[in-house]
Every structure is written in C-alpha cells, then in structure tokens.
C-alpha cells in the first residue's frame, strides 16, 4: 500500500516522466490476457474507452491497442438516449430492462509482444501477435435505482438557469468559452450540484464473454514457422454495494464476486526449440475484490484441468489516479509448475478522443 502511495506521489510530483521505467501492464484486453501479461485473470471492465493504448516496459517491442467500435460507428444516430444506453426504459409507467445493452461495450484488441515463455525451453524472447474480442453479454441493474438516479439528474439539470443573452450574444471564441465556464462553474456551481451523482452504479450481475487468438513466430521471422494459442472465457460478476445511503462518501464501495470458466488450446510449449506441442486446459475459478474509494483489493484463485493440472493464486491491488490512469500490482503463484512466482506492477491508461468544444454540423 505504502509502495503504491509513494509511487502515486512521485507520478504527480515529476513533470517529466520516463514511462519506460515502469512495468506497464494492461489489466483489461483479452489480447494481452491470452499472453499472460495481466495482473488479474478474472476481470470485467467498467468504463470502456473508445481507444486504449497499452505498452509494456520494453517500449516499441510490446504493445496493445483496444478499441470500442460503438464509439466509432453510427455516430450520427439521432435516437440515442441515456435510458437506451444504460438499458433501462419506462413504457406505460412500467420499467423495462434490456439485458443486452452491454453489447455496446464490445471491444477489439490487438497486441504485439516480445517475451520469453516459461513453457518454452529456450532463453529466447519470441515475437507474438494476438487479437482478441470481448463484450458484456448480459447485465442486470437495479432498474428502479438507475431510473430514479437518472430522474434526479434530470431534475437537477432542469434547476439550472440559462446563461444571459449578454454571454449568448458574444462571438464564438475563447472569451465566450471562459464566460460560459464561469457561469456554470461559479454561478451555477455545477460541481457541487452534481456531486451526489458522481458515484458509480454497477450492475447487480453481468456476464462478459471474451475470445482471443495468438501466433508465436518460432524463428522470429515473418516467413518462419508459427505456433498458436487460442482461448475463450466467460466471466460473471455479482456486485453488492457496501455503503448504500452513505451521503458522506464520495464513492460507492462494492464487494464483487467474480467467476470464470475458460478454455485454452496452448501451442506455446516446447522441450526443445524444434518440438512444439499443444496443451489443452479448462480453467475454473473465482475472485473476490473490494472497491474502496480509489483502491481495489482482490484475491483470485483459478484451478486448471487438462494436459497439466495446475492452479493460480494471486492477490492484486489497484489504485485509480483518475478515470483514465490506474496503478496496479499483483503477487502470488501463477500456473507454471516451475518459476511460478508472479509479481507484477504496472500502469494502465487509455487515450481519450474528442474535442472539448466543437460545432455540430446538422
């Protein structure tokens, strides 16, 4: 904990940060997850970014990109509403829930990685490409709570005044931008008014599905032999709020129970550099984690059945610097029979796309 806090302080204290000094790790994308580069194996993302870019500590030699097509396709749609987006609507005074609304969180990921694999008897690092996809297949909210929250937000929005015509008549430009900001931030005090609505409302249950495929270049040349690894998995998550009704708290704290079932065909095995074999695994496991403000503490256990029976037992901790950057670390035992100590520390972040101010072309 102290280690994380010290590093957090350092992160903000330094103006110029040499990111290559950090072990970078993405704790989300399936493309990285299949290559065993993740702090946690049991994970469901909450706030999907349009584009997330992830790098490892060897910049330029290992990286992953994850994109969410929802934010790039049909952007001219004229029928979007928050209620459709979250999947809770009201028809004839009856609340309805679309359990498939989480499909808009579908992501595609691509990874390139150069690493040595414990299962390959060689000191070489191998160039590996990986692609992955993930989506939320089902999600169920407390629909009354979500709807009531949205209604309260709408009431608060309606309580705002409009900027006076003296501002509205100003020509578009930095002066008008500043005047509008001053009006909303200082006169209308939007930060204060909307503080109660900053808390995350999680689904009571959601089920995520992911699939990934990866190619390893045996001779590290594009026209050389390749071996493959394939994986598909389902992750279910139950979330229970711990501080319901606590108006003093700035966050909703949750305890989450996650379950995973995974199938893996792993061709990245060799007792010598020219005799690769394929192992088949079925993994079943679970995780408990506590979201306490900016900290998330968790423990996961996965039992591996198949060609080799094994298990993974890892504790992990994440500290969110903000919505886009988090520091994460994990420690424990990985699946490998030998050299199975897992100790990883990394930073995860996403790039935001979009302008803060723009005109609309109707």
């Amino acid at each position, binding site marked *: 904990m102290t280690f994380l806090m010290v590093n957090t302080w350092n992160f903000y204290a330094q103006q110029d940060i040499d990111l290559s000094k950090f072990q970078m790790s993405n704790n989300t994308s399936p493309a990285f997850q299949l290559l065993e580069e993740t702090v946690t194996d049991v994970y469901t993302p909450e706030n999907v970014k349009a584009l997330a870019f992830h790098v490892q500590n060897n910049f330029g030699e290992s990286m992953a990109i994850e994109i969410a097509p929802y934010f790039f396709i049909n952007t001219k749609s004229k029928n979007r509403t928050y209620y459709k*987006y979250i999947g809770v609507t009201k028809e004839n005074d009856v609340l309805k829930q679309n359990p498939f609304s989480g499909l808009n969180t579908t992501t595609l990921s691509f990874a390139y990685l150069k690493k040595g694999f414990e299962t390959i008897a060689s000191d070489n690092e191998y160039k590996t490409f990986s692609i992955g996809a993930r989506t939320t297949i089902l999600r169920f909210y407390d629909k009354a709570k979500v709807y009531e929250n949205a209604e309260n937000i*709408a009431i608060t929005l309606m309580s705002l005044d409009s900027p006076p*015509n003296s501002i509205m*008549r100003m020509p578009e430009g930095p002066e008008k931008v500043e005047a509008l900001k001053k009006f*909303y931030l200082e006169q209308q005090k939007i930060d204060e008014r909307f503080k109660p609505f900053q808390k995350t409302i999680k689904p009571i249950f959601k089920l995520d599905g992911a699939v990934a495929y990866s190619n390893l270049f045996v001779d590290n040349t594009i026209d050389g032999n390749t071996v493959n690894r394939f994986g598909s998995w389902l992750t279910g998550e139950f979330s229970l709020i711990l501080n319901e009704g606590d108006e003093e708290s700035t966050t909703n704290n949750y305890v989450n129970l996650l379950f995973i079932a995974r199938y893996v065909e792993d061709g990245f095995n060799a007792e010598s550099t020219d005799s690769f074999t394929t192992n088949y695994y079925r993994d079943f496991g679970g995780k408990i984690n506590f979201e306490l403000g900016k900290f998330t503490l968790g423990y996961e256990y996965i039992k591996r059945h198949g060609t080799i029976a094994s298990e993974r037992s890892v504790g992990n901790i994440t500290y969110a610097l903000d919505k886009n950057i988090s520091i994460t670390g994990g420690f424990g035992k990985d699946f490998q029979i030998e050299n199975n100590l897992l100790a990883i520390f990394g930073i995860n972040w996403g790039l935001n*796309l*979009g*302008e803060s101010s*723009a005109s*609309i072309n109707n």
Partner: protein
Amino acid sequence: METIRIPEGAQVKLQVAISSDAVVATNVSLNDIIVKKSAQYKFNMELGVANELDNNGLSIVSSFFVSTGNINQIINATQAIFTVLFNDESHTIAVQKQKMSNTFFIVYAYVELSKS
C-alpha cells in the same frame, strides 16, 4: 449574429431533437426569460406570434450530465437539432458544444427574431 425574419402574424414554433447517451435537460429563453424547461430528448413548443417575438433573443441551452461512459466520446456522438418553424418555413439554428467538467457539457444556440 444570426437573425430570423418572420412574416407578421405568423405563428412561430420551436422543434428540439436531441440524441445523446447522456441525461439531458433543455432551457428555452426569450429575452433572458426562461419560457420552457424540458427533460425530453424531443419536444415541440409554441414560441408565439411574430408580432410578440419582434426583437427577441431566442436562446436554447441543453445541459448534459454523463452518468456512465466517457464524456468526450459521448460529446462527439451527441446530436442536437433546434428548428424554428413558421408558415411553411423552417430554420435550423447553428449550435455549439462545450465541455464544462468531466461529467457536464452543454449544447447551445442563440438567434435574434425579428418581424419582417
């Protein structure tokens, strides 16, 4: 400053159509007096007769709160069409977007109305 000239005696309406993944509420004002507040994504309203609206400044401000998702992506995908209707004519007003905080943004338009 955009001015819409309206024939004398014409009944003037406003049509608002918003598409966004954020929660929205819209204020419609004439000469700094709010004449309608709505939390609907689509609505129509009567603004009045041309004679009453002469030399009025019409401002339409939709404010948005992003409860779930990334605000920049939601701003980009937000569409707002404000249309002034009278007789058989329609005028779509140019609108602007502005982000105010990590969860709040506005889409706004301003136009002068005058009797022709």
